[in-house]
């Protein structure tokens, strides 16, 4: 019905077949249009949020890089970018290190209280961000972490760990435990076994978990809005303020750069997924 029209299809079936495709096309358009439209708009030579007649006429004068220039020279945006890039990698490191260890523990057949522990460790992903942010704001101000770099890093690391656990656990499902026993049998101690046998095999899962953790921290705005002080103003925070107060077209340039980052991440993840499946002897699909 969906893949191809049989030669004996009636007129009604034909009509439905094509109108279904048109409907799906419209929905795909709805999905992708808002993401793509900001790219040409960000090259606008005027401070407008819509296409100018010059742009529609494809006149080169209608386009310019001035919003990008503003992004790379404006101190507000530059410090925001710097903050984002100094918070996200550290949070990712915490989340990946703790998350990978925990995932290995959780995948062992005789892990006690597995489902309860799993539920607790996944909870930062389930609890609405506004509630996490509120709780962290109350608690971190008690212990003096509110408004500090470390406070934001710890909070982002906590939010990122569930993604690491999920991706690493998924790679470990196909992991052959007899490899570990074989290594031990040949005289390797557990640490060597881990780094020489287990790690290379689960590495794609660990890296994609780390990417998820990175993007969680990099995109996160609610928690940092409450926990951070002006010195931790990140890129999403700056965008949020920009959108709420005086919306400037520089935001479109930033958004375009972020879309480029997402495309790069998506491609990396897809390549990692294929590699992981090949390592585990599955056919990529």
């Amino acid at each position, binding site marked *: 019905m969906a*893949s191809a029209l049989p030669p004996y299809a009636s007129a009604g079936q034909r009509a439905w077949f094509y109108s279904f495709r048109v409907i799906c096309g419209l*929905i795909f358009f709805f999905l992708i249009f808002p993401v793509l*439209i*900001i790219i040409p708009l960000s090259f606008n030579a005027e401070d407008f*949020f819509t296409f100018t007649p010059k742009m529609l006429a494809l006149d080169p004068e209608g386009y310019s890089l001035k919003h990008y220039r503003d992004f790379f020279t404006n101190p507000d945006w530059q410090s925001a970018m710097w903050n984002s890039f100094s918070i996200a990698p550290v949070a990712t490191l915490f989340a990946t290190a*703790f998350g990978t260890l925990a995932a290995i523990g959780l995948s*062992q057949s005789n892990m006690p209280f597995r489902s309860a522990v799993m539920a607790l460790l996944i909870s930062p992903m389930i609890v609405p961000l506004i*509630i996490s942010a509120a*709780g962290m704001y109350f608690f971190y101000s008690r212990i003096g972490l509110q408004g500090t770099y470390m406070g934001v890093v710890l909070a982002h690391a906590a939010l990122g760990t569930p993604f690491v656990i999920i991706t690493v656990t998924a790679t470990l499902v196909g992991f052959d435990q007899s490899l570990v026993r074989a290594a031990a049998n040949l005289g390797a101690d557990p640490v060597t076994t881990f780094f020489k046998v287990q790690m290379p095999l689960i590495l794609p899962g660990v890296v994609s978990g780390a990417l998820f953790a990175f993007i969680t921290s990099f995109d996160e705005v609610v928690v940092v809005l409450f926990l951070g002080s002006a010195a931790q103003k990140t890129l999403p925070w700056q965008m949020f303020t920009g959108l709420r107060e005086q*919306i400037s077209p520089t935001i479109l340039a930033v958004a375009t750069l972020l879309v480029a980052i997402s495309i790069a991440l998506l491609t990396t993840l897809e390549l990692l997924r294929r590699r992981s499946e090949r390592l585990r002897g599955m056919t990529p699909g």
Partner: protein
Amino acid sequence: MTDTAETSPVLTTRDGVPLKVSIARATRRQKLRAFLLVTPLLLFILITFTAPIADMLYRSVENDIVSETLPETVVALEVWDEGSGEIPNEDVFAALARDLKIAAEEKTHTRLGSRLNYENPGMSSLFRKTGRRVKRMDEGNYTEQFIDIDEDWGTPKTWQVIKQFSSPVTAGYFLAAVDAERTPEDGLGFKESDERIYLFLFWRTMLLSVTITVMCILLGYPIAFLLSNLPMRTSNLLMILVLLPFWTSLLVRTSAWKVLLQQQGVINDTLVWVGLVADDSRLQLINNQTGTVIAMTHILLPFMILPLFSVMKTISPTYMRAAKSMGASDWYAFWRVYFPQTVPGIGAGSILVFILSIGYYITPELVGGTSGIFISNRIAYHISSSLNWGLAAALGVILLTVVLVLYWLYDRIVGIDNVKLG
């Protein structure tokens, strides 16, 4: 064979330890090792995440401010009957004078005043005014002196409020969060219907979340159906169109909608150009509920498509063919054979979208205006603007409970282990 069993009734390992003991020991060691691997993260999450949530639960009922600031008054008030309609006796006023002198020196009376102001407007200025003049009070006859400062001290209502909130734990924030209040007859009642802001806000959050979920089902179902029935190469290619928005920063998508939906934005411009809308009556698409629903449907749609797709992928096309070969029409075969098998996917996607939707903050804040905001926006307001943290915590606890119940349902229907990413 019976011989061996008699001579060695217990199997042992080579070093003479019974096998059972040896296995138990090894298993215990393995269990311990598995647990030790999880421990660092467990501790990390307990400190950085679980403790804050517990702190929020505590804050939603915590109320030691009255008993801490006015310790002697609270003790003296115990014998006063708040139903009597009379003000307390001189002892209580004397205790209040002593307490307030200390409080005014430590400047804690204003904090108490603003706390009690949530319960009874006017308390804040009452305490500020009294705190300024309590230092110059003479010995004796405190009742008169206090009433002289402000006649509110002569009304039983003031004292009822102080006594009501003198216990260290209060349900007051939760009552306020569901628009209820204590009535003077010691009962519970809802506020006047025009003052019920929170129930209304909870209701609107639910209603808009349901609308968004339904929109996601309507838009997501055809896409998931198409993707699961196309050849793998084409469907992988089209999947990018679903995954790219999914991976794009939330703020990028929100700013895109903010730009598109403006009155001078691309959508209105196009509609005017096509001639569907007159230039002077451009559509109001943003800063209202329409804006919230459109932007959030777009943001949450991938969360509906992905679970639906993974369910539809497992449905064999032979069922539909079998139904049709036995004379079912296209529609009948779909509705009676295919659709029932996709219901688990719809359930999983709907709960996921709904859970995510009721806790959303950023998008409603930016495109919702005043009519399209959610309960989360009110929580944020109480944390950063009105500083009524107790009420924010109580609202948060209610929202959290709703989410956890839904999450439990999700776990029952889908299982948390089946969560997949991308």
